[in-house]
């Protein structure tokens, strides 16, 4: 309880900051919304976020079902590979698509050799929608796949015995069980989409975040009022998801379940094609584009002979920094949200529910606001602040606030999936609280907690604004290096570092999350 309250207060820092700025400023958030000046960007933000979350929800759920519940070929490979798109920072992903598709890019060259002269120019709503959907569907895919693997075959088999067809059994028995996971995943996608700066900017789609960004210096009060609007939007989305998930209660059996895998028959080929196409677009295409940059288009006969601006030392330093803080963030994020999840999931406590909402809504806040908020508070809290300023601890705290929301959904489902009967039995047998936690709860929740940690890990590795503003001086990360190299047109170096980032992310996810999953 105490831990949960402390956790929630930590997560409330940025929101408190935005409120404080609004109270002490002149601009009125409500006036602005109805002034028409931001009506259009606000509407575009909403439209984009809804479209992206629906698309990502469909792709993520479909793929999760294929990978977890069917006899699709290479299931184990897909389970890992389809999570990879999360590692691309959206500015890299969007830039890779733009550069590859447009004239002079690799996709354009390739299509040109087949006689296609003009690839469609990727921009605006379609561009932003495509890129964001492709890079966010794992937010749905990962938790849903994890959940699908927990649902025991017995339920489905009972339904079959009672006369349901395979499809009906899935719809009536399995789908309701994964609905909360789908809802939670889509919520994250929605929040990500309304708070994204990078992709929408490069795709030239004018949203609320652009309005916030251009107003920071010009009219800070307006920027903060708009941030409040963003928070309001997030709160509405969180509330909606809450109502939705409450109407879908989860009942679960314990132990490692036997899985029922649908035999696809002839559909196996189609399934493989579907998984492969998403993989090709969302993972392979950006990687090919990055390799193309990293080799400066050498394979296509573009050669400049310019010496490289980075050496092995630079790469290793940035890699160690990134991996170190990301692992720590993943660990602390799960520790921070676990008490809240237990309060909500086990005791259905109202304060717990509020804390849960605060954690989730924080995900809609742009990283730069969280960074500024933490600067603001550390410089105004005397000794504690002075002691924290410019430390790795503060950086990790900022990351946890930014991404804890990613862990809380799966953690909550993990908490709920521990059957009360088993815990009661353990208590009757005399196991104390600690013993129950270590030998019962944690092993049963492990899959969910690891998935949560994995989501946080992947996102932290690609985080940019907090890394720039809060990291201790002289602490470069992969993304900060990539950002500047990219800014100064050192595309080769940016490509090399981006590939390192992707490789590390994949290796870590594999080692910590996927390899340990009991996928058969």
């Amino acid at each position, binding site marked *: 309880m105490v831990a949960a309250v402390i956790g929630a207060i930590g997560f409330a820092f940025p929101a408190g900051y935005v409120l404080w700025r609004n109270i002490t400023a002149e601009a009125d958030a409500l006036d602005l919304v109805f002034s028409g000046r931001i009506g*259009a*960007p606000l509407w575009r933000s909403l439209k984009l976020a809804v479209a992206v979350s629906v698309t990502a929800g469909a792709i993520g759920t479909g793929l999760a079902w294929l990978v977890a519940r069917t006899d699709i070929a290479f299931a184990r490979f897909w389970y890992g590979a389809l999570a990879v798109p999360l590692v691309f920072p959206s500015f890299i992903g969007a830039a890779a698509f*733009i550069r590859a598709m*447009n*004239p*002079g890019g690799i996709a354009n060259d390739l299509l040109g050799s087949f006689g296609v002269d003009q690839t469609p*120019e990727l921009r*605006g709503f379609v561009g932003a929608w495509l890129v964001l959907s492709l890079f966010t569907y794992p937010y749905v895919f990962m938790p849903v796949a994890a959940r699908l693997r927990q649902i025991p075959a017995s339920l489905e088999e009972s339904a079959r015995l009672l006369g349901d067809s395979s499809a009906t059994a899935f719809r009536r028995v399995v789908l309701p069980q994964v609905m909360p996971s789908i809802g939670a995943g889509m919520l994250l996608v929605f929040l990500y989409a309304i708070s994204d700066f990078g992709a929408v*900017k*490069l795709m*030239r789609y*004018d949203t609320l975040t*652009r309005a916030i960004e*251009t*107003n920071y*210096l*010009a*009219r800070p009060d307006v920027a903060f009022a708009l941030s409040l609007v963003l928070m309001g939007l997030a709160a509405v989305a969180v509330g909606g998801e809450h109502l939705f998930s409450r109407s879908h209660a989860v009942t679960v059996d314990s132990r490692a379940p036997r899985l029922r895998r649908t035999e696809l028959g002839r559909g196996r080929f189609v399934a493989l094609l579907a998984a492969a196409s998403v993989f090709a677009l969302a993972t392979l295409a950006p990687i090919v584009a990055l390799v193309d940059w990293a080799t*400066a*288009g050498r394979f296509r006969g*573009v*050669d*400049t002979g*310019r010496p490289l601006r980075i*050496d*092995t*030392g630079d790469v*290793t330093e940035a*890699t*160690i920094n990134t*991996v*170190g*803080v990301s*692992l*720590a963030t993943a*660990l602390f994020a799960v520790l921070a949200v676990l008490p809240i999840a237990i309060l909500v999931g086990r005791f259905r406590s109202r304060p717990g529910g509020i804390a849960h909402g605060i954690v989730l809504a924080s995900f809609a806040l742009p990283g*730069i606001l969280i960074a*500024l908020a933490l*600067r603001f508070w550390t*410089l105004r809290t005397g000794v504690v602040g002075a002691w924290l*300023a*410019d430390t*790795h601890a503060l950086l990790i705290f900022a990351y946890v606030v930014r991404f804890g929301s990613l862990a809380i959904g799966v953690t909550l489902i993990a908490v709920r999936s521990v059957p009360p009967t088993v815990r009661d039995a353990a208590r009757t047998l005399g196991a104390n609280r600690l013993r129950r936690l270590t030998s019962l709860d944690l092993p049963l929740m492990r899959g969910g907690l690891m998935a949560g940690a994995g989501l946080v890990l992947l996102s932290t590795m690609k985080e940019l*604004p907090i890394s*720039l*503003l809060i990291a201790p*001086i*002289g602490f*470069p990360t992969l993304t*900060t290096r990539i950002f*500047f*190299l990219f800014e*100064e*047109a050192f*595309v*080769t170096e940016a490509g090399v570092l981006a590939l390192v980032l992707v490789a590390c992310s994949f290796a870590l996810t594999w*080692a*910590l999350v996927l*390899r*340990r999953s009991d996928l058969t």
Partner: protein
Amino acid sequence: MVVTAIVSGVTKSTNSRTARALALLAALALVATSCGADDAATLEGPAADIYAGTCADATDTTITVYSGRSEELVGPVFDAFTCETGHAIAPRWGGSTDMALLLGEEGERSAADVFLSRSPGPVGFLEGKGLLAPLDADLLDLVDSSFASDEGTWVGFSGRQRVAVYSTDTVEPGELPASVFDLTGEAWRDRVAIPATNGSFADWFTVLREQFGNDAAATWLNDMVANGARSYPNNRSIVEAAGRGEIDLGLVNHYYNYQEAAALGDSHRAANHGFANNDIGALLMVSAASITSSSNNVEASTQLLTYLLSEPVQQYFTTTTFEYPIAAGVDAIDGLAPLDAAAFGSIDFNSLGGGFEETNAIIEASGILNQ
């Protein structure tokens, strides 16, 4: 240190194979980094072009710099300064706007001594908040007075000229415009791009407003939109788009095209076109250096700013980053269009700090963002 602690933390929670692999990785990496760090008495790489002598003994002074200009460009200058003077520099790298916001938030409690900005806007913002210290008169005298703040709180240290970048495949040199005001004509319908939300464009547009008045500025932008001008997120994306023939012409800072050409070689199919020297389209924008009012390191900071305006550093800026030198009598490198310095004397950058609100309102009202 942190890494080792984290790795050992992980050891407890994962199985031993993963932990061993991670620990090994970390150990290897630590060895690799420690091997790289030997104390050379002279500099290597780009920094050696600025200072080739032996390094001075380290002093106990450390200057904290928030730099809106990137490590790739300014890093070698800092290395040369540290070698030559012995003063250490602790740089925080970031976007100019982000850094200005951070400094604004930190206020009088900031640990920063020096703030370097890509353009005058962000320093103007801090000047307006009273967070910049007045600079030494000798330092301000190193540049033409038009390249420094009237209040003496910031000084320019390199220049970027506004130019038109054009696709060499789709634009004939003969049809290139002499003035930005020509771009609203029929000849340029649906052919032009501008970076409407970009900081340097906003800076430029603010100066345009100051010179011609709000009405004329708004009319120009509205006519551009009516003529089918498109908005891109920044200078670089416009230069890239011109290089691949996606647009015919765009309004940008001059040096991006040099960088793209250096990076892409012949496959980059775009060139710069300078507007007439007295045209507002050919405005010279400066990157700006300032000292915070919270700095207790003013002397060393002044030394650093003076160093930025010294002959070798000005030479470095023009040869390495293709920028215009603005001090120490250094000439721009061959290939950069010569500047008529007199033409820029009348520009008042001081309006920039407070002028963004109106600029943003005009840009948003023009509808160029709603495409």
